[in-house]
């Protein structure tokens, strides 16, 4: 087998950086949820950990399943073993993933679960969108834009920034128009926010952003305490 076809750990890590905690809207790599990553030929072993043993099992499953899928997307990787450590549903999730079972099947011993996780994922994609939009609006307002101007802006008029990139990616995930001509300020259904309710809209969006950020701070701290790792204070 030619050497250049061998997948690297860096390549897998890069793929994993695209997996986000749906609740916190941050990459699992930045959240320090990955404790081990080992590539051997065409297979990879990945270990995940979470801030508490009672972190919501549905999100735990999503992250573990997404991590597996991301790893398998790396050229040359044919097998990905994902293990979730120290969680009250570790057994179910690990055996479910190893057997390639879906979410419903994985938890069938707990209780019948009628639907899949698509709806849940959508709820949190909407929250992430709202939060990223608010963050961007805050930056624009402090940069001198008025709320009326925000309501009239098109995506193409928004000055480039990292906050804009993140907003556009969350917006695209919801299947909303991200072309330059599309209105900038829309709700998660893609409907334009009228000028006279921009303030109210942002006021409520701010709560979503605050919730996610507070939760993220709490989770980072819990993880740091649980595993004795040093936590860098974030601004």
């Amino acid at each position, binding site marked *: 087998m030619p050497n250049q076809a061998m997948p690297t750990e860096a390549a897998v890590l890069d793929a994993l950086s695209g997996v986000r905690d749906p609740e916190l809207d941050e990459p699992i790599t930045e959240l320090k949820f990955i404790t081990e990553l080992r590539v051997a030929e065409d297979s990879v072993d990945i270990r995940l950990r979470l801030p*508490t043993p009672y972190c*919501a*099992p*549905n999100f735990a499953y999503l992250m573990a399943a997404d991590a597996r899928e991301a790893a398998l997307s790396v050229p040359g990787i044919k097998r990905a073993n994902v293990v979730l450590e120290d969680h009250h549903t570790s057994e179910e999730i690990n055996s479910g993933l190893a057997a390639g079972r879906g979410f419903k099947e994985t938890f069938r011993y707990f209780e019948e679960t009628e639907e899949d996780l698509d709806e*849940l994922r959508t709820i949190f994609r909407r929250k992430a969108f709202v939060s990223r939009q608010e963050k961007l609006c805050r930056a624009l307002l402090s940069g001198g834009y008025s709320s009326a101007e925000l309501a009239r802006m098109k995506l193409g008029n928004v000055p480039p920034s990292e906050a804009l990139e993140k907003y556009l990616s969350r917006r695209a995930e919801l299947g909303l128009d991200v072309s330059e001509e599309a209105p900038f300020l829309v709700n998660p259904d893609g409907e334009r926010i009228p000028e006279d309710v921009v303030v109210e809209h942002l006021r409520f969006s701010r709560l979503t952003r*605050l919730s996610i950020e507070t939760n993220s*701070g709490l989770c980072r701290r819990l993880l740091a305490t649980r595993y004795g790792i040093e936590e860098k204070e974030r601004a």
Partner: protein
Amino acid sequence: MYEKNGEKYFVVDGHVHFWDGSPQNYNKYGKMFIDCFYGYHSALSPEEYLWPEDKFQKYSEEDIMHDLFEIGYVDKAIFQPTYLLDFFPGGFNTTAQDAVIAEKYPDKFILNSSFEPRLGEAGLAEFERKHERYGFKGVKLYTAEWHEDSKGWKLNDYWSKRYLEKCQELGVKNIHVHKGPTIRPLNRDAFDVADVDHVATEFTDLNFIVEHVGLPRLEDFCWIAVQEPNVYGGLAVAMPFIYSRPRYFAQIIGELLYWLDEDRILFASDYAIWQPKWLVEMFVDFQIPEDMQGEYGTLTPDIKRKILGLNAARLYDIEVPSEIPQPAPVMAGTEPEYPETPV
């Protein structure tokens, strides 16, 4: 009572426990549960208030009396039972466990109870007997609790409503709701507080106190509280941010004052996860940072007095000493504009 700079504060700790999370009493899920609590304790307490793990698992009557009343400034503490019989076979913190202390110091504690809607009709009769025995005015409901095959329930389930009707009938008017990660329904967000909305609309003469102000779903909680005047926010879990993340704490309090008003926010330590002493001291000293005051205003001694004790005193008909100023309820928030120049 706490006094600082000539201001006096009557303190009601709205959420305390006397639990048994010791190895003699837990199974593997119980162990993870108390570990989880200990994680919260360790992560958010100032260093000088950290307990060793074994003390945290089971502490003494002396500890609770000392921490709440001798040094913690608490005038009244409300026991909020958490049964968790599937995790702790002897009960984690049941009405009967709490009653041992509550009945010994009746002027110090208010004893709440709980109900288990999945026990159906038989549980309903048992609940009534329990009320006859203890005469409580409030219940604490933990919708994430396991029971046999069920891994959680919702407030607007049929049997839950039957129990809420019973609460109405018995004059149990304060319903504390604790959201935690449930297993069922797995495909839903376990922290979702939408079920509170349903029952708050239906049971308008009951008060629904959402513990930890709905965190991590503050936005959903505020949305409901704006529409339902009988929905309150308990500050357990949010309080300790005052130490580790004061700017987030300022924003949480600021948002609660904006969406709910100052009469519907209740102080709580969640003892023994955190201790009231430092929380009360820091809260009385706390002010919204200057650069946020344009958005959130400031916290006056009257607002702090309401949050620390007067609001809970109103819900539980607790007599407040005359030396404590008692500002009238406002029942309407000020409406600051979203700033053109945000923080």
